[in-house]
């Protein structure tokens, strides 16, 4: 299974003595990224100042939606998407769920939380329980409101449709990795008159959120919003770190574009970035 000679036969010599061919830039960029993000996370956790995340338009809608549900005496539905527990979008949803659950506990509004993934369900159960505890309302926590519907996409979809039609939530918050079921949830949510908030990075579903939901967090906004809303230092540090690298990428694009105008055929920066 391990045959170094065979692999050696077509392995080019190392660059700078230790790196495999074409891996210098990945190493430098990757390491710099890890260091910068780690430093910011550490600072945030230690309570030291890091740049503030701006308020995301549409984030107020979460408060507004819960407030309206409270006034109407109807429940709030929260779906974390149908992605796996290690999916970045699902992880972003955890933080938002904590916030929503805490608000619902304070206002004494019923929160219906539905799940497709069994591991996500286990995590969410803990989050909601913990949030009710933190809000000082452990007695108001109802374990039956955090629901595992089915591991199968369509059965999950049918289950949520039934819940929406029967229990008529006044707010429908869909935060996570959504797929084909988006369209169906949004239509039914619209018919039962719920305020709908969507957040996903799945570009194929974003158009439907924009067309049919009241508020949509586009792509990365969902990560920033989850950091903003939860004030979780790990998340905040990550968002700031990503922004620093976005500025770096921005600078590379500007320099590269200028070099491109000088000599469209041979752009030294392009060569370095793709070949080293």
């Amino acid at each position, binding site marked *: *299974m*391990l*045959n*170094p000679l065979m*692999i050696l036969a077509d*392995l080019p*010599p*190392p*660059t700078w*003595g*230790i*790196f*495999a061919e074409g*891996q210098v830039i*990945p*190493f430098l960029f*990757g390491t710099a*990224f*890890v260091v910068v*993000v*780690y430093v910011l*996370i550490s600072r945030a956790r230690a309570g030291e100042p890091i740049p503030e995340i701006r308020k995301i338009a549409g984030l107020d809608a979460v408060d507004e939606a819960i407030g309206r549900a409270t006034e109407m005496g109807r429940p709030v539905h929260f779906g974390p998407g149908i992605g796996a*527990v*290690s999916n*970045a979008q*699902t*992880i972003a949803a*955890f*933080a938002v769920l*904590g916030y929503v659950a805490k608000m619902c506990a304070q206002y004494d509004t019923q929160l219906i939380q539905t799940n497709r993934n*069994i*591991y996500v369900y*286990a*995590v969410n159960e*803990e*989050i909601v329980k913990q949030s009710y505890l933190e809000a000082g309302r452990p007695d108001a926590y109802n374990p039956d409101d955090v629901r595992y519907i089915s*591991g199968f996409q*369509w059965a999950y979809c049918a289950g949520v449709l039934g819940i929406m039609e029967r229990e008529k939530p006044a707010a429908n918050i869909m935060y996570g990795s959504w797929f*084909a079921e988006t*369209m*169906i949830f*949004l*239509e039914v949510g*619209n*018919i039962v008159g719920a305020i709908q908030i969507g957040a996903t*990075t799945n570009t194929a579903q974003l158009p*439907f959120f*924009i*067309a*049919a939901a009241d508020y949509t967090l*586009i*792509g*990365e906004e969902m990560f920033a919003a989850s950091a903003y809303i939860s004030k*979780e230092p*790990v998340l905040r540090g*990550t968002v700031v770190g*990503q922004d620093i*690298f*976005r500025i770096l*990428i921005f600078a590379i694009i500007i320099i590269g574009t200028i070099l491109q105008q000088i000599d469209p055929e041979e752009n030294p920066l392009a060569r370095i970035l793709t070949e080293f």
Partner: protein
Amino acid sequence: MRKELPLLITTVFGLLMVFGRWFWLGQLWGIESITDQWIIISNGFAVAIGVVNLTQLHGRNVQRRREHWPYSLVLIVAMYGYMAIALYETVEGPTATWLYDGLFTPIGSAMFALIAFYITSAAYRVFRVRTREATVLMICAVITMLGMAPIGEVLISGWHSVAEWGMDVPVSAAFRGITIGARLGFMATAMRIILGLERAHLGGYGAS
């Protein structure tokens, strides 16, 4: 120990992958081919988890005669029946193929086909031009729908080229902006997992 060792395994395995790719020695030692093989095999042996889960859930439904329990029975019969056949004659055997082509494929495809109906009714009942943004979105959607289908070119010559231009230039450009950002986001999540700052997958969030 119960939480620390798994976290350590995650970190070590993640770093091993990185070492095996970035460093010359890592490639020389063929680390990737070993880690890949490990993943393939460990996944293979974990595969029955779905069957066990379903048996537990639906077995209980049948046992306690819960609402809709006959359907649970259908599920268990279909599952073990098909599994027995496919284990005996492989999934390519004649009976297994018959069941696959006669039941599995039609049901699965029909379920995905349902969305066409939902989209059609949503077109009438939900897609509103509430804002200027939504209006632009809907107009672009209609230009694309008709332009990518043969009808656009029949109605107005050149419509197809307009729709194609839309895909080649503005769409590709905007999606690139989103893709670059998303890649940074995935890297950040991967990095948090490797450094042990993210533990949701081990049960419990925010313990860090």
